[in-house]
C-alpha cells in the first residue's frame, strides 16, 4: 500500500493522523476570491519530483499523477516489487480518475489568449486526458499488463480494486497496481461548488465535514492518491511478498435513477452482492468504512441501506471523510488504505464531528471517539454521481 493525502505523505503519517482524529481541512482564501460559495478544501502540497522523475516525463504529469507516483512508489516498495520483477512480468494497472480539469483549463486559456496551439507545450495533451494517471504510471514504472483508467465518479477507486480482483480471480492477471487519484485545485470543483454541494461552515474548517451528524451541511472536497497492490495468492507466495489482506468480495450496482440524488435501493443491492460474493456472514464484518460524505441526503440514505442490509446486527460504522473531506475519484482506494491501516494497528479512527445523530444514523453504531480494538474484516462503500455504487470486503490475511 501507499498513500499521499491531506492526512499525510506516507502510510506512517496517515496512520498517525487517523489515530489522533486529525483533520486535513482548511479554508482557502483563493477560492473565496474566485467567487466560491465555500472555500473549504483538503490541503496537500504538490510533490516536488525534481531529481526523481526526469523533466521530459514530468511535463506529462498533472498534480494527481504526481500524487499517484508518490503513493505507487511507496506501495511498490512495501510490496517488494522491484523494477527487475516488473520488467520481466506483466504487472497490470487499474487506477480510478474522473477529471483533469486544471490541465484542460490552463491549456485552453493559452489557446484562447495566444491563438497558437504550440504554446500549450508538449505535455498538455497527456495532462488533459482522463487517463492521464494510468498513462503516466504505466510509462514511469514500465508496467506491461492491463493499463486502464476506471472512471466511475466517486466510486472510481473502489471499482478499480474490485475490477482488478476479478481479473486476478479469472486468471487474466497475476498482479495489478490499483488505486485512485484526485486532483486538488479550484477549477476541478468549481461547478461542484456551484450546485450547493459543499459545506459552508467556513468559520470552523475542521468541523465542516461531519458525516452522519444531524447538523451536517454538505461535503468538503479533498484529494490525493492511494495505491494498493493486489496479487494472486500463488504469485504473492511465489515471490515472497508480504501479504496483508485478501479482497474477498466486490459488489456493484447502478441506481438507474437521479443524476445526483442517491437512493437506498442501489447501495443496498451493492452491499448485498458484495456479501454474497464474499461468502461471509454479515456478523463477520466488524467495521464498515462508509461512503458518507456529509451531505444531508447521501448520509441518510446510506444509513438506511446499511441498517436494512445488516438487519439488526450493528457493526461499527465510520466515515473517514470527517477528516479527509471527500476524496472523490480517489476515495474508494484511499478508504481501503485507511481501513487497512486501522486493521493492521488495532484501532478504528474516530468519526470526528459526530455530535448528534439524526433519526437514521441513530440506528448505526458510530463512534465519535477512537476505538482501540482488534478486527479482522471490514467493508468499504463508495457511491458516485450517476448512481454508480461499489462495495468491497477485505479480510486480514492469516496463514
Amino acid at each position, binding site marked *: 500500500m501507499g498513500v499521499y493525502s491531506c492526512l499525510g505523505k506516507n502510510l506512517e503519517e496517515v496512520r498517525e493522523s487517523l489515530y489522533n482524529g486529525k483533520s486535513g481541512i482548511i479554508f482557502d482564501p483563493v477560492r473565496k476570491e474566485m467567487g466560491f460559495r465555500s472555500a473549504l478544501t483538503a490541503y496537500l502540497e504538490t510533490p516536488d519530483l525534481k531529481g526523481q522523475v*526526469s523533466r521530459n516525463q514530468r511535463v506529462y504529469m498533472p498534480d494527481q499523477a504526481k500524487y499517484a507516483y508518490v503513493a505507487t512508489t511507496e506501495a511498490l516498495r512495501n510490496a517488494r516489487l522491484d523494477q527487475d520483477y516488473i520488467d520481466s512480468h506483466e504487472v497490470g494497472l487499474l487506477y480510478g480518475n474522473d477529471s483533469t480539469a486544471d490541465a484542460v483549463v490552463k491549456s485552453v486559456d493559452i489557446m484562447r489568449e495566444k491563438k497558437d496551439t504550440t*504554446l500549450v*507545450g508538449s505535455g498538455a495533451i497527456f495532462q488533459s486526458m482522463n487517463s492521464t494517471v494510468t498513462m503516466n504510471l504505466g510509462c514511469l514504472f514500465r508496467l506491461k499488463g492491463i493499463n486502464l483508467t476506471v472512471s466511475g465518479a466517486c466510486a472510481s477507486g473502489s471499482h478499480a480494486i474490485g475490477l482488478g480482483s476479478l481479473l486476478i480471480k479469472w486468471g487474466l492477471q497475476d498482479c495489478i497496481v490499483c488505486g485512485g487519484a484526485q486532483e486538488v485545485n479550484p477549477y476541478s470543483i468549481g461547478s461542484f461548488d456551484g450546485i450547493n454541494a459543499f459545506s459552508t461552515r467556513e468559520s470552523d474548517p475542521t468541523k465542516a465535514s461531519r458525516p452522519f451528524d444531524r447538523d451536517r451541511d454538505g461535503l468538503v472536497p479533498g484529494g490525493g492518491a492511494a495505491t494498493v497492490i493486489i496479487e494472486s495468492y500463488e504469485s504473492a507466495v511465489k515471490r515472497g511478498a508480504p501479504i496483508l489482506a485478501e479482497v474477498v468480495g466486490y459488489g456493484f450496482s447502478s441506481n438507474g435513477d437521479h443524476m445526483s440524488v442517491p437512493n437506498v435501493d442501489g447501495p443496498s443491492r451493492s452491499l448485498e452482492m458484495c456479501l454474497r460474493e464474499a461468502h461471509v456472514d454479515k456478523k463477520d464484518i466488524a467495521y464498515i468504512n462508509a461512503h458518507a460524505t456529509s451531505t444531508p441526503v447521501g448520509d441518510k440514505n446510506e444509513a438506511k441501506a446499511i441498517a436494512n442490509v445488516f438487519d439488526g446486527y450493528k457493526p461499527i460504522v465510520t466515515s473517514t471523510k470527517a477528516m479527509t473531506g471527500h476524496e472523490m475519484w480517489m476515495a474508494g482506494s484511499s478508504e481501503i488504505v485507511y481501513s487497512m491501516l486501522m486493521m493492521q494497528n488495532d484501532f478504528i479512527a474516530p468519526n470526528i464531528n459526530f455530535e448528534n445523530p439524526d433519526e437514521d444514523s441513530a440506528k448505526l453504531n458510530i463512534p465519535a471517539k477512537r476505538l482501540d480494538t482488534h478486527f479482522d474484516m471490514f467493508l468499504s462503500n463508495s457511491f458516485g454521481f450517476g448512481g454508480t455504487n461499489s462495495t468491497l470486503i477485505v479480510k486480514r490475511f492469516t496463514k
Partner: protein
Amino acid sequence: MDKDTFIEKLNELLAEEFEVDIQTIRPEATIKITLAMDSLSFVDLIAVIENDFGVKIPGQELKELKTFSQLYDYIYEKIQKA
C-alpha cells in the same frame, strides 16, 4: 539587445526549461543531445523562444538547426528583422 546578451538570456531560459547545466550549452554543442530532447520536446523549445523573444520557429525549420550556434544565428536574425 546585442547578440551576447541575447545568447546569455536564451541559454538561461533553456537551462531552466530543460533542467540542464548552463555550462553544457555551448555554441558547437548539439541541441538535441544537450537538452536531452525527445520526440516531443521540440514543441517546448519552440514555445520558450516564442514566449520570450516573439519569434516563431516552424517545426520543419527547427529540425534543420543542429547546434546552438545555428539556433542563435537563426533567432537573432529574426529578432533584428522584426
